[in-house]
């Protein structure tokens, strides 16, 4: 059948099974919006307050569902507003297709109104991008974009469509799409055997897993590996939920804000199994003292991650799920109780100093964890609250923590929560925020209210840019340059002004009742929690220090 470019685009989205798209209209995408109007029964468009919110929503949708997230923006500023969202998805390997309009082909390159070279701008932050120059190419490009976004290590792909392409017509046939399979990696039997042999010889094995386990849907295989090998498991921030936090083998997060147990176990282990993790600088800290006694085996789908940040003894490239499955079949039972006893003893040494009646973020998060039974989808912004969330909410399932790990994008959480809530209508969605990051993109409250999304925003309000302030406190002699936020914003009134429900939390005893009430409302809620400005994130490995030099709390800091 003969269709316009705009109709072909929407048809192709339907081909891919896209049911939700996040965007903001404008001149260059008028025809696309006209098609969306026509196809509104088949594909639902969610209008955000800002294109950045649309990009984060598409990202949150992808993280929560495992499907490709789709966002749409007009040319020029619409396109550039997507950039932070695309970069966020790129750093965390999230499958995203971003569609931008552009000026007509004959106006391209002439500094036309609302023209920007978005393909050039997004080149380093996309897996690939396309500028559509002929309407006949459009369907093929859209199909290829979705394939690239999902295949191998996932990531964002951008399609830039000049306006005249959306008007021009050509023949279109609907195709049935098979999702890409990652079985084109040759996993050699001898590589598996080598890994199994390393594991068998190890007295003190340790598993370090990351977001790749979640992307590969390999949590069950990881669980089997841990239990069969009696290995303690630590997770990167991106790996949260890949292994249940409630399990005794779980030692908590690793790295800069990792637990003492994880950081010491990584230092002491004789074999480190890195599964879908990329040895970020926030994990390894001081390179030459990271896992100094260990042989490192790396399992990843991206060959370029091997020997990038750290040299490894052995690696296997392929679908993590498949590789783990093969390794698991070869594992022989081995007693590692001495090693486990050592690690379990360390696990007891993360206790924070008693905090009595004070309203602490840890307590709030523990309460959220308890009241939701670990079943909620937890989004975060970026900062102290993000780390507290990773540490104190008991994540038991993959895709339950949605956070900007690689780029560290403040203002990510609310948009992501919107996308996550739309992807998983039955789930309770929280956005754990700080006052600083919430203020960055709080405009999306309007979106959450409009679509009646039962998102609970919990603001850990310390009236400061807490994480930066913590560094100033520890390393800049308490010169609090531009991190004190004594703003007059009344978050309860603000929530009400947007049509949401607002609460103030100032005392520990109010936490459970307010949370219960908020959960019962099934509406967009903002809970402003007044917490102590001096409250820091512990443990912490100071920048440049080795993991084993982790500081577990204020008293430890004074001792040093």
């Amino acid at each position, binding site marked *: 059948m003969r269709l316009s470019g705009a109709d072909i685009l929407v048809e192709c989205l339907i081909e891919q099974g896209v049911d939700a798209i996040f965007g903001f209209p404008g001149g260059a995408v008028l025809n696309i919006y006209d098609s969306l109007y026509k196809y509104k029964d088949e594909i639902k468009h969610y209008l955000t307050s800002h294109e950045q919110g649309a990009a984060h929503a598409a990202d949150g949708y992808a993280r929560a569902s495992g499907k490709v997230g789709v966002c749409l923006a007009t040319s020029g500023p619409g396109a550039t507003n997507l950039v932070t969202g695309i970069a966020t998805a790129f750093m965390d390997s999230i499958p995203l297709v971003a569609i931008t309009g552009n000026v007509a082909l004959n106006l391209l390159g002439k500094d036309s109104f609302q023209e920007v070279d978005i*393909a050039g701008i997004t*080149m*380093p932050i996309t897996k*690939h991008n396309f*500028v559509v120059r002929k309407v006949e190419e459009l369907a093929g490009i859209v199909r290829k974009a979705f394939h690239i976004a999902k295949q191998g290590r996932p990531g964002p792909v951008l399609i830039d469509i000049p306006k005249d392409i959306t008007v021009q017509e050509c023949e279109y046939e609907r195709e049935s799409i098979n999702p890409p399979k990652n079985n084109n990696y040759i996993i050699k039997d001898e590589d598996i055997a080598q890994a199994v042999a390393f594991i068998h010889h190890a007295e003190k094995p340790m598993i370090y897993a990351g977001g790749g386990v979640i992307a590969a849907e390999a949590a069950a295989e990881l669980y089997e590996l841990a239990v069969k090998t009696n290995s303690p498991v630590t997770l990167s921030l991106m790996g949260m939920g890949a292994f249940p936090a409630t399990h005794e083998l779980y030692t908590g997060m690793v790295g800069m804000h990792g637990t003492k147990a994880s950081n010491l176990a990584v230092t002491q282990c004789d074999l480190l199994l890195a599964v879908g993790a990329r040895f970020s600088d926030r994990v390894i800290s001081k390179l030459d003292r990271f896992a100094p006694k260990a042989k490192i085996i790396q399992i990843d789908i991206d060959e370029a991650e091997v020997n*990038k940040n750290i040299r490894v003894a052995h690696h296997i490239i392929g679908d993590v799920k498949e590789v783990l499955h093969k390794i698991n079949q070869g594992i022989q039972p081995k007693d590692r109780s001495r090693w486990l006893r050592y690690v379990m003893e360390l696990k007891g040494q993360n206790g924070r100093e008693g905090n009595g009646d004070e309203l602490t973020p840890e307590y709030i998060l523990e309460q959220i964890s308890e009241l939701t039974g670990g079943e909620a989808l937890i989004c975060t912004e970026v900062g102290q609250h993000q780390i507290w969330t990773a540490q104190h909410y008991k994540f038991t399932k993959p895709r339950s923590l949605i956070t900007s790990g690689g780029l560290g994008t403040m203002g990510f959480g609310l948009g992501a929560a919107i996308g996550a809530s739309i992807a998983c209508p039955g789930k309770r969605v929280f956005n754990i925020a700080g006052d600083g990051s919430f203020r960055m993109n709080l405009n999306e409250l309007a979106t959450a209210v409009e679509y009646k999304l039962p998102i609970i925003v919990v603001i850990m309000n310390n009236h400061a840019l807490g994480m930066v302030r913590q560094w100033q406190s520890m390393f800049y002699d308490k010169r609090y340059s531009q991190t004190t936020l004594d703003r007059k914003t009344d978050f309860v009134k603000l929530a009400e002004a947007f049509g949401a429900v607002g609460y103030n939390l100032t005392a520990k005893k109010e936490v459970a009742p307010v949370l219960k009430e908020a959960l019962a409302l099934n509406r967009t809620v903002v809970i402003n929690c007044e917490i102590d400005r001096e409250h820091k994130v512990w443990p912490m490995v100071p920048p440049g220090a080795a993991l084993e030099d982790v500081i577990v709390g204020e008293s430890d800091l004074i001792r040093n």
Partner: protein
Amino acid sequence: MNRHILSVLVEDQSGVLARVSSLFSRRGYNIDSLSVGRTENPGISRMTIVVRGDDHILEQIIKQVKKLINVIKVVRLEPECSVFRELALIKVRTDLTTRASVIEVVDIFRANIVDVAKDSLTVEMTGDEDKIEAFVNLMESYGVIEIVRTGLTAIQRGHQALHEQENMEEV
């Protein structure tokens, strides 16, 4: 810092040069030269990239370049199994007294004179970089007005074509 020569087959599409070159600058890899042109296969171009770095950096460069969607194949060319050439155009200052001796050197180097003016000669020469360097050094005493070089281009010896090779060379 060793010098390595990479041959890269790419899809001939707009932006592919930018993708490759921006990858190098973004990740801080040093390029000595980059040359690109069409190949025997329509739709496929071939780049010859001269890079500097230790083996670890080279391994990363190859893996990162391979990840680009438009890149079909990356191979590191072994100097002993490959032929390297570069073309240079060199404009040399000459007068009646020096012209003959410049022409003599040009002949020795089997280079060609492509332009003659009252007070200059333009020499076209092809060779590996050492040969070009040696010629330029000799010309310095006459006065080099300007030099333009294409950058190295290279091909493997023997009958096999790059696109036929089964496995990419493991570094």
